[in-house]
């Protein structure tokens, strides 16, 4: 899977939880889920669960701990896909 495909899937996953649409329009690798998209912190669990379903990987506690930005999430997904 290319990084672009991965990013596009990730965007689809996070969209329902986004509360700042301007932040979503300007989404980049540096986008922070809480600060820029105003995703409620309890919904970050849903993001992790949706990522598990979409990519058929397991997001353990250490991985979830990092998933606060687009960049970190892409890295987590790539690492998990590589060890699948």
């Amino acid at each position, binding site marked *: 899977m290319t990084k672009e495909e991965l990013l596009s899937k990730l965007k689809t996953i996070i969209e329902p939880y986004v509360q700042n649409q301007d932040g979503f329009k300007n989404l980049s690798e540096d986008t922070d889920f809480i600060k820029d998209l105003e995703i409620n912190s*309890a*919904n970050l669990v849903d993001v992790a669960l949706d990522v598990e379903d979409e990519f058929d990987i397991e997001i353990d506690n250490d991985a979830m701990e990092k998933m*606060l930005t687009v960049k970190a999430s892409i890295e987590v997904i790539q690492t998990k896909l590589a060890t699948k």
Partner: protein
Amino acid sequence: MIGNDIVDLQLAYSQSNWRRKGWLQKIFTIEEQGYINNTENPDVQVWKFWSMKEAAYKAHQRRFLLSPRYNPLSYECSSGGKVSIHNYVYAVNTEFSNTYVHTIAKAYDCDYSSKIFENTTNIKQELKWIIARKLGIPLTSISIKKDENRIPILYIENKKENIDISITHHGRYSALLANC
């Protein structure tokens, strides 16, 4: 070292489905899950534990100047109003109504000011007012800035002040906390 967290229950019920498969396991320890599943009102218990973890996270993050991370499972709630992470224990105090849950976490015993607002517009301004009155200083001498880890820091006359502050919002509610 203090932190506080508020949950608007009505919003939480619509924003999160804690019964979703895998949801509880990602956030709560086995003991916490057992407690949630055996209590009379699990909907409230979930958000009570959640606010305890969030408040303790804020106190812990400030104490050790930690960069933001998402590790609610590492914060373990126990009976008697305690949350622990690794070997650090935070005393928590949770207040309920039918519509919100609010928790204050403290690393050490200290005096504090705390207030909950419904539909408030400017919580930062409210916090400045409270501090100005407590310390008997002009409102305009107080400013609040977030540091690189997004921890709010209080400045008086542009000098970092040794007073911990914590602000929380969710839905219709916001709350503030300051150890003065």
